């Protein structure tokens, strides 16, 4: 389903800008009457709906036109497209290639589904589903507020682990079946590029089978990055690969790295009764998040929990537990490299990021040099060789190119490549790709952080504005007793372009898509603020957010507005009332 919606949005994206420009012009030409003439808005929305309808019709026509070619690769090559790696990226690309009517093969040396399905997003969501419930059941105050009485909540570790494992198997078989069902050949073994348009696959060391393909996509993904000095034994010093199997729940676990992975695992482990110590090399926890969101997240996800942390330190040496001694972690100052402390814990989880998995790909055969293991690519994901030239018919998507190490980014890149190969110029807008961290509550984001936006604004000379709404004002969130949360919109004041949206709160990961779709489609705030949201839903957090943004020249507020917030409030409420009145008129 997700690939389907992405496909539509990317096909629309090409023309989106001209459409929205058109609509803008339409609105602005009649702007003096906008407030009093909702009919125009309804026209606008309706035409948009019609346009979208037309678009998808057109799309169907296109696929019908190419359908007869189905399954018949050109005589020169064994396949139209060979994808190395059957993770989420390869899967997305394969599905889209099949839609184009291409003969497609996918080479997988391990298990279908890759990191995400087997050792990443999928099983971790199973564990987080458990941790969320545990957390809720253990929160007496929360339960009491509902009037619920729950006897001591407990868990069966094996049962939890089985849930994660079963989910991974289920999604893996779904993925495999969808590939098979669509006629994609799944070739087992390690894929190696022998030369242009030529790939060998088979067990390592065996002679293997050589196939040719018109185009090749590298989608080999990544593996957990383990810094030097760290000895991973898979039992007491582990990476996410082992942690997801949940073979034991340590009393005290150190998590090295406080990014998405570390944060999610801290949520799981603390809910299951562990105490956690974060070791973060940078000066603050949760680097990479918008600072304001990070700060709030720290207040909710770190400070009240059984978690402490060391920032600005490297774990220079980690020794697994043995001979009755605990796991030893030597900490050194990240800047001065002086020894700072030694931790003795029951387990250590290495969550310092992920390293590309590109060894044995045979890149040397086509004169491609990796950069820190990553395959260099251009904006179309086409591979660049050592001389800086594009390698024809060779692309690399997903974690292996390091542009954005997210499963859905890989899939989007794969679809973009297929579009590109089929002759449609397609550049994926990475700023429209959302990201989420599935803690309780969740964190999600799309686009730029506030500092990034301000930097960009300085360079390009526009004014950045920030709007914020709280979950405390949302009926649904309050009904769930989950009022803790913040949504933050970073936008261009002059034209209403959305630069970034960051959400911390209940179901933030599901809420971000309204914003990411708006960015992908180039929808401006002044348009999206008129979209209607069901009441009462969490989506109204974003509704409020867009409505609270002020687009237009600075100081456009009248002096009387500035001086009197009450007047402002009165005006806004009366506007809302007028709007509701008109809405009800039109809906009847």
């Amino acid at each position, binding site marked *: 389903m997700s690939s389907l919606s992405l496909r539509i949005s990317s096909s629309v994206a090409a023309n989106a800008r001209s459409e929205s420009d058109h609509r803008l012009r339409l609105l602005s030409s009649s702007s003096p009457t906008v407030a009093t003439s909702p009919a125009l808005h309804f026209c606008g929305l309706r035409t948009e709906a019609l346009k979208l309808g037309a678009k998808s019709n057109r799309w169907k026509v296109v696929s019908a036109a190419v359908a007869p070619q189905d399954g018949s690769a050109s005589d020169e090559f064994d396949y139209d497209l060979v994808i190395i790696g059957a993770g989420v990226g390869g899967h997305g690309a394969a599905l889209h290639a099949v839609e184009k009517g291409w003969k497609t093969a996918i080479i997988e040396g391990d298990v279908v589904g890759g990191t995400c399905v087997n050792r990443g997003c999928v099983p971790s969501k199973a564990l987080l589903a458990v941790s969320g419930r545990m957390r809720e059941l253990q929160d007496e105050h929360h339960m009491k507020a509902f009037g619920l009485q729950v006897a001591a909540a407990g868990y069966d570790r094996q049962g939890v682990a089985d849930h994660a494992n079963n989910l991974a198997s289920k999604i893996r078989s779904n993925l495999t079946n969808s590939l098979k069902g669509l006629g994609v050949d799944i070739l087992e073994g390690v894929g190696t590029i022998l030369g242009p348009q030529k790939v060998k696959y088979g067990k390592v060391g065996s002679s293997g089978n050589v196939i040719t393909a018109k185009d090749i996509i590298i989608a080999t993904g990544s593996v957990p990055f383990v810094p030097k000095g760290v000895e991973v034994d898979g039992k007491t010093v582990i990476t996410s690969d082992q942690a997801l199997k949940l073979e034991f729940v340590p*009393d*005290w676990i150190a998590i090295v790295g406080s990014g998405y992975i570390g944060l999610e695992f801290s949520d799981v482990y603390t809910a299951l009764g562990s*105490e*956690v*110590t974060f070791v973060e090399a940078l000066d603050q926890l949760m680097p990479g998040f918008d600072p*304001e969101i990070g700060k*709030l997240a720290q*207040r909710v996800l770190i*400070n009240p929990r*059984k*978690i*402490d942390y060391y920032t600005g330190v490297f774990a220079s040496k980690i020794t697994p537990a043995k001979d*009755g*001694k*605990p796991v030893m972690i030597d900490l050194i100052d990240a800047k001065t490299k002086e020894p700072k402390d*030694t931790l*003795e814990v*029951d387990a250590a989880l290495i969550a310092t990021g992920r390293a590309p998995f590109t060894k044995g790909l045979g890149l040397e055969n086509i004169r491609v040099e990796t950069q820190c293991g990553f395959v260099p690519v251009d904006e179309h994901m086409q591979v660049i060789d050592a001389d800086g030239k594009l390698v024809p018919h060779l692309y690399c998507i997903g974690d292996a190119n390091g542009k954005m190490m997210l499963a859905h980014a890989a899939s989007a890149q794969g679809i973009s490549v297929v579009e590109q190969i089929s002759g449609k110029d397609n550049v994926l807008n990475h700023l429209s790709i959302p990201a989420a961290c599935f803690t309780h509550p969740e964190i999600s984001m799309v686009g730029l952080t506030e500092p990034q936006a301000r930097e960009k604004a300085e360079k390009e000379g526009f004014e950045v504005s920030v709007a*914020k709404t*709280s979950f405390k004002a949302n009926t649904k969130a309050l009904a769930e007793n989950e009022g803790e949360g*913040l949504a933050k919109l970073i936008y261009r004041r002059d034209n209403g372009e959305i630069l970034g949206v960051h959400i911390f709160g209940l179901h933030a990961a599901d809420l971000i898509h309204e914003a990411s779709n708006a960015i992908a489609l180039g929808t401006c705030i002044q348009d999206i603020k008129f979209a209607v949201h069901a009441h009462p839903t969490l989506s109204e957090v974003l509704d409020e957010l867009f409505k609270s943004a002020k687009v237009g020249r600075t100081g456009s507020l009248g002096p009387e507005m500035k001086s009197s917030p009450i007047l402002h409030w009165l005006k806004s409420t009366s506007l809302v009332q007028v709007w509701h009145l008109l809405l009800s008129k039109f809906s009847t």
Partner: protein
Amino acid sequence: MSQLLHLGTSFVPSSSTALRRNPTSSPAIHISGNKRTTIQAKIREIFMPALSSTMTEGKIVSWVKSEGDKLSKGESVVVVESDKADMDVETFYDGYLAAIMVEEGGVAAVGSAIALLAETEDEIAEARSKANTSPSSSSPSPAAAAAPEKAVGAPEKAAPVKAAATVTVAKMASSAHPASEGGKRIVASPYAKKLAKELNVDLGNVIGSGPMGRIVAKDVEAAAAAGVSVAAEDPKPSPSSAPVKVPASTGIELGTVVPFTTMQGAVSRNMVDSLTVPTFRVGYTISTDALDALYKKIKSKGVTMTALLAKATALALVKHPVVNSSCRDGKSFTYNSSINIAVAVAIDGGLITPVLQDADKVDIYSLSRKWKELVDKARAKQLQPHEYNTGTFTLSNLGMFGVDRFDAILPPGTGAIMAVGASEPTVVATKDGRIGMKNQMQVNVTADHRVIYGADLASFLQTLAKIIEDPKDLTF
């Protein structure tokens, strides 16, 4: 996220929904401010505000104003980070920010001074010298002593005790941590560290019981509890004073600020009002053997000890009307027409004084029935005003707890109150030179000396003792 808070007297937010305490009913702060102004005219302390009900300390994120800046009311002065959020804090007072006592990044306990506000420019220098001489306000203990929340009671009072605990625990701890390379380092789990900070326990003195000698949460809790019980030991070691479990086993969340209930508010007002009355106390020891015997005899008829005491008191008051009088305006006093004995009863969340009206006239059996009815009503919080505020003399009995003597505060509007202790077998020398055993109880009357003098009380008590020691009149 940043919310604006208006400030009351000093820096007490008045418009925060998170804050349950209404600043206008926060006398401690007023007192503190008043005191300040009497000593040091027009220099106000700016306090760390309580921005949420769970906030115990706040961090200064940034000072919006700097020293010497002119402040007009409504302006943001400082951004404070609480356990929940960053909030801009504004002032209701015009003046000059004279001295910042807690720098940015510093932490201060709720209620401690973080800056001084001078009303005029001339006073800035004076305020600054003051800021320099006053003890570092970021240290919580002196601040806590002056904290407005002092009145809240147990949770806050526990703090100094816990501080003492840190010292006392030291004696019992050995420094051997198997997990810490022979005691070189302290190995404590993250939660243990958090708890230690909260409970003010020095981890260096805690023996770890976790894996490989690591200090875990329960060790810290045990150390804190041990500290508290050791500290509590000096007044009177008692076998029943089991180690106080600090993480509230009683369901009380320690460290919270609890607003007064209506009843507590009323009691508080009355207690403060009582300070305007000059009182004195007279005690007396009364033998109760005869009363006990009588009680035993008529107990089966539903007579209660409280009713007997009330009856005895009422009969004594008949002979000493001045003790049953009351002075309200300080210029005259009233001989009350009826003898209404109010008896203090502890009920859930406070104290109430149901009144036995005309206790001198009503017979003991009716009085006992009436008493039972009143107590039931009090427990159900259904007492009518005339049933609890028409007392002319008050009885307070803590004898059932084994209290042998205490002293009571005179309720405003009455002339006297009698504190009754437990009747206990006592070895006494009798007048004929022998030593015998008698049940004795001590009573202690607090009275308004504007109208009731020592001799009045003394003769009243003598009469009362006679009645109790020869109680035949109680049953007519």
